[in-house]
Structures are given as C-alpha cells and as structure tokens.
C-alpha cells in the first residue's frame, strides 16, 4: 500500500527564491502540506508564479496570499500557525521580529511548533543583518577562492550551490526536530546560517588551515589530497567534449595501461607506486590527453569503465536530460501545469524502494488555495474572506 511519509504534516512557508523554497520542496515531495504565503507585490521575477524558476522550486505546494504588513494579517497568520507543525522563513533577522511573529510569539499559539529561520548569516553575531545571496555566500565560505586554477583568479561554482546546501541542511534540522518532538512532545526553534552551511562543505580544509594557515591554495582538477594518479579532465574529440579519469589502485593502474595499449608500462619503475605516478603526473597526463584527443568521450568512458577504471563524461544539461541511466531510474518526470502544458522536472535523489511519495502536482498559481486554506482549514465564511480580500489583506 502506498504510504506517504509526511502527509500528516503541515508547513507554513514564508520563504523566497531558492534556499528556503528548496527545503520546503523536499518536504512537499514527501507528502507534507506546504502552504506558501505570497502577495501580489512580491510575486515578480524569480517569485512570479509564472516563471520556470518559481515552478521548479514550488511544485507540490499550495499558495495563499496574505500581506503581513497589515495588523489584521498577523491574526490570520497566528490562526494558521495554530494548525501547523512547522514554520519556515528565510528573511533577514529583523523581518519576523518587526511583524511580531518571532518564535516566542508563535509558540504561544502552538506550543510544540517547530520554526526554522534560514538567514544568510544566522540570527546572532556582528554580521547578522548583512545581506547576501547564494553566490556571495560561496565567496564568504571559501568555495570561490578554492574552486579555481589559481588564487589570482577566483572562479567558484557556476550556480547558486550554497542555496541548495542550506536547503538540505534545513530539512535535516526540521526532520531531526520532528523526531525529537515525537519522542518528547517539545517544539524547537532552529537558527540556520547559510554562511556556516557553506563552510561545513570544506571542513577538512578548515582543519588544514588551522594547522597550516598560509599553505592552502586552489587545486584546479589536481589530486593533491586524493590518493589517485593519473587524475584529471581531458579533452575528447568534438566541441566541448571532455572525459574525467581517476586511477586509485594498482589494479586500476594496470587496467589503464592495458586499455591505452601499453600493458608493460604498468611495471616501469617511475610509475611503480602511487607516489611515483604522482611525481610523474605530467607525463601521464600527456599520455592520457593524447589517447583521448581522437576519441569520443562516450567511447573513452566505455573502454575505461569496462576495464574497471573510474571515468566519466563531463555532461551538460542536454546530456543529463537525455541520460539513459537517469531515465532508467526515473529521475526525471513530467508535471502538467494548470494550463495543461507539461514541464520536465528532476525528482528526488532519495529513492525509497517501498514507500511512495504520492502523485506530484505542478506549482500553484498565485493564491490558488485561498478558499481551501481560509475557508476549509480556518473556517472563515465566504463573506469574511471577501472582506479580507477587499481590504487588501488577502492579496
């Protein structure tokens, strides 16, 4: 029988753009009833219900409109809190405070409430009110400096990775707090810092920096801290086709020499151990580069993986969308929007072999669920809802 894990959970979602919506999307994918609060005013750009970006991060959610700048809206919000398990917000720390909707006030109406604040810097500290976005937090957290070929040209990742990491940590914290609530009946306030979330992803390097502060440099694609050689990214035939290879064990090294057509090379003294291969990596890189140059990435990877060597095609978005392996695992699926048009979306990488996550729904239009939430859940009459709409509170 289908079992939807989070179906009895209700989440009030005040988050915008990426980190917060990603966290609540994961909750929604597993069946939680996520109610996203919007206003017509802020539903523009990345927060426009019509944009592809919004639709991706807000699938499976409900949408209501509520303008919290009105004092009456605050009462409605408290009513919603009373019937919710989790409140998620990613404003800068002043915002909920100014609305009078901080955790201490919310837990008065819902004592076992779990609330998470997902701000850039955290709720405390000298920078708590600083503004930041995913890419700038990647720079603060060391990823831009380290992901580069040289310290004189910091590059960083080609997307807002920090928002994804913070979203994942947000879900871990919420679910851990729910487990604690299950055992003790206690609610929880969680103060998450996206800056710190980025820092955790370079944890070993921060230990290294504690010991050797002035010795930490970007590594490009080299295997400085990895017991592998040869190791790297090599150009294949065709435009922008590349192949990555990593040779760890002696067995893999022998296999590589076989695949590259020179089995006896494996026994040569200067390549006879990992440290010797690392010492002579320039020569090995050239050997691999020459072999790759006239081959397609597909052929190279097939030969290498066929011989048990870790290797991979550098896939672009088009490759990923057509990747037969991802399709065999049903990684992508089509979601039909309100207009009847389907959009492809990636599913969850958390694959349960028995539990189901239920039928998926496309992202909601603005305020689509006002009647359900205010009427059915809060029990307001049609006339009451109409009056809130006329006064611009539900708007």
């Amino acid at each position, binding site marked *: 029988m289908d079992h939807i894990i989070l179906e009895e959970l209700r989440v009030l979602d005040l988050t915008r753009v990426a980190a917060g919506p990603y966290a609540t999307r994961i909750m929604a994918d597993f069946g939680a009833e996520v109610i996203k609060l919007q206003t017509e005013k802020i539903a523009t750009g990345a927060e426009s219900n019509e944009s592809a970006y919004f639709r991706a991060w807000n699938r499976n959610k409900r949408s209501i409109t509520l303008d919290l700048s009105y004092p009456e809206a605050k009462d409605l919000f408290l009513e919603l809190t009373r019937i919710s398990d989790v409140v998620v917000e990613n404003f800068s720390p002043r915002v909920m405070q100014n609305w009078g909707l901080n955790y201490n006030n919310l837990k008065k109406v819902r004592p076992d409430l779990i609330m998470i604040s997902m701000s850039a810097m955290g709720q405390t500290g000298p920078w708590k009110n600083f503004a930041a976005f995913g890419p700038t937090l990647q720079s603060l957290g060391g990823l831009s400096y380290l992901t580069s070929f040289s310290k004189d040209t910091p590059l960083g990742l080609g997307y807002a990775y920090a928002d994804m990491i913070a979203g*994942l940590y947000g879900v871990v914290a919420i679910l851990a707090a729910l487990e604690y609530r299950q055992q003790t009946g206690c609610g929880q306030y969680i103060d998450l810092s996206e800056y*710190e979330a980025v820092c*955790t992803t370079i944890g*070993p390097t921060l*230990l290294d920096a504690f010991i050797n502060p002035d010795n930490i440099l970007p*590594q490009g694609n080299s295997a400085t801290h990895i017991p592998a050689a040869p190791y790297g990214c090599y150009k294949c035939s065709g435009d922008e086709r590349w192949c*990555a290879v990593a040779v760890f064990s002696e067995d893999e090294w022998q296999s590589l020499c076989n695949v590259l057509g020179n089995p006896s090379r494996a026994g040569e003294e200067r390549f006879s151990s990992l440290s010797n291969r690392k010492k002579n990596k320039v020569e090995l890189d050239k050997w691999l580069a020459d072999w790759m140059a006239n081959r397609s990435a597909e052929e190279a990877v097939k030969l290498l993986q066929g011989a048990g060597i870790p290797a991979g095609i550098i896939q672009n978005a088009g490759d990923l969308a057509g990747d037969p392996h991802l399709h065999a695992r049903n990684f992508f699926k089509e979601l039909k929007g309100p207009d009847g048009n389907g959009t492809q979306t990636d599913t969850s990488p958390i694959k349960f072999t028995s539990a189901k996550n239920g039928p998926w729904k496309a992202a909601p239009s603005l305020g689509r669920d006002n009647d359900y939430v205010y009427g059915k859940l809060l029990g307001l009459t049609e006339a009451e809802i109409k009056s809130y709409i006329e006064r611009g509170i539900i708007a």
Partner: protein
Amino acid sequence: MNSEAREQGLLDGIRILDLADEKASFCTKLLADLGARVVKIEKPGGDESRRMGPFWENASHLEKSLSFFYNNTNKLGITLDLDRNRGREIFLELVKQNDIIVETFQPGYLGSLKLDFNFLKAVNRRLILVSVTGFGQTGPRKAYKSCDLVASAYGGQMYVTGSPTSPPLKAYGEQSYYLASLFAAIGILLAIRKRSQTGIGEHVDISLQEAVTATLEHVMIRFFSEAIIAGRQGSLHWNHAFKIFACKDGFIHLTLFQNWETLVEWLDSEGMAEDLKDKKWNNEEYRRQHIEHVIEVVECWTKTHRVDELFELGQLMHFPWAPVLSPKDILNSAQLKARKFFVPLYHRENDTELSYAQLPFRFSSRFISRKKRAPLPGQDNEKIYKGELGFSNREIQQLLHLNVI
C-alpha cells in the same frame, strides 16, 4: 522517553552502524553530531577512507587524515572483517541491536556476502539500510566505478564550473560526498518516521550522480524551459547578477543589479562612473546585454579600493556584497567567532587541540555537549564486543588473533 535520556541531542536513542567510506561518512557524522549513537565499522587495520588527504603534518598516515577526522566526529569505532564467516555472524548480532546501516559498497557486494537488504530485513524487520553509490542500485551504469571527480563530471557540475577558456573544473573538496550524505541523512530521518508509523524498515538508494544533478540550481530548469545549455562563464553568474572583482588587496563578490543608481552615484563621487550616468544604463535589461562594459568600468573602480572597505561600506548601503575569503580568513571571521562556529577537540596523541567547524544550526533545546574526535581503528572494540555483545576477554583475543576484528 523522559528528557534526561535525551540529553545528548535531538537524535538521542537512534543507533546506527556506519559501513561507509568517504562517500557517505559525513552522513553519519551529521547524525552523530545531532545525538545519534553511531558505530563505525572498519576493516581490521583501518578503513580506506583514512587515505584521504589533507593530512596532519602532511604524513600520509592512517591516523592523520584530516578528512577522516572531520567526517567521523562523535562516532564509536570498531573493526570487523565482513569477508570472514565469523565476521558476518558478529555483524548480524550487531544488526539486531542497531537498526540503521549506512553503506557505500559497489552494488551487489553485500548480496555476495548474503548481507543484502532482503537478507538483513529477515534478521530485523525494522532495519533501515541506506546505500550510497556512484550511480545507484539500478540502471545501466550501476556497476560503473565512481569518485567525487566522476560524480561531478556525470552529474553536470563540472561542465558549468570554470572559465570559458578553461577546461571544466571540479568543485573544490568532495562536494558530491557531502551532497549525497545530506540526502542520505534526510532519507534516514524520513525512513525513521515511516517506520514509527508502519513498524517496517526501508532500503534507501542514493546515487552520487543524482545528488549532484538534483542541486544544479538553474541548470536543468533553463534547459527544460528554454532549451538553454548553460556553459562556463567564470565568476559571472548565469543571469549576470553577480561577479567577482579585483581590489587592491584581494577580491570582492559584487551584485551588478541591486541599488544600481546608488552604485553609480558612489562611482561618480569618486569621478569613476564614466558613461554609466547615462540614463540608458538605468534599464536592467540594457545592463544585462552590455555587461562587458559595466564590468570594465566597475573593475577600474574596485581596483582603487581595499576589500574590507567595499564590504563594510557596501553592506551599510544594503549592497549584498562579500569578500572572497581564503580558509585562513574564514578562521578569523568575526561573525563565525561570535557564533562559536569552531569548537576545539582534543587529540591526545599530539597533545593538541584542533579547531572543528560545527553544524550550521543552533537549536532552542540545550543539550549536554559530548564532542569527541574521530575514533582510532578499533578504539571501541572492547566496549561494543564485551559490553554489548557480551564476549569474554578470551573470545575477543581469539577474534583479534584470527584478524576478524
């Protein structure tokens, strides 16, 4: 359960066996830091993941891997050889008392030892098994070998990272392992919730490739909505909204769209706005299309300033700017210091404390801290084998002698 029994953290009472190498040891570190009891099972002599650098004092020594240190805090450590019959028997005893397992073996390996999910769930129907592998348990590439580089390649991360003139660039460190570990930790917490409702465990299948592809932010969205194949554009964000600029003494990450008029006034007050005062530049779309010129003018200006000056003044004016920090700078960050983000852990063998990054959240519930460094190989053999499985000293000696533990 009363609150005293939960003094270790939110997940106190949860018991996990960790068979994972570097691909997912961060998953159980995360849960151990949150209060779960995690027993790391290594091969006699120590796990392969102890060979991952960087190393303390640069010695490639099994007890000096900083990567292992970081990814295994707060765990207990035992040794056990699953390739031996006696080792497997002991493992099944452990599975009766610890009903969550995280593993990273090639698909099929546990099956060959008769320790796959179907077999284990017969021993303990509440068992939650989480398998983290390069490509997952199913599909045409399931037997392919992987590592962070291969996952970053196949997952789509490398193609969009680097400059237009450089080869694709792997994200620094072991990002796919942290992503997969975070997804695996969420999977475990979901499976625990399901189990409390149904009484039945679960097999969770995590693929490194999918962990990367699922977190590409704009990349798949733009492909599916506009058929755009995102390429590499250095530090310039895909929508041109952010870029890294050189200063006198380092680099700063700027936004080029927020508070545009204020930015132009600022440049102008120093006589460096050039033609950006022209009204046409107030149009965001126009700036996006002529971004090269904007970058040129702004970079002339940033080069006349220090990083701190632009960061502090910028933030005062609500520009969401940030310095490009090195690991050394991060250790000295006033914000992280104020939040006590780094916590010292004692390492007896060097009689030194190392400063560890904590998890990125604080909870309103306070717990008694029990921060512990990563275990040495077999450090808790006696505690587990004697204390929990009830083996005698003689039995333990024998198992050691036979290299089972």
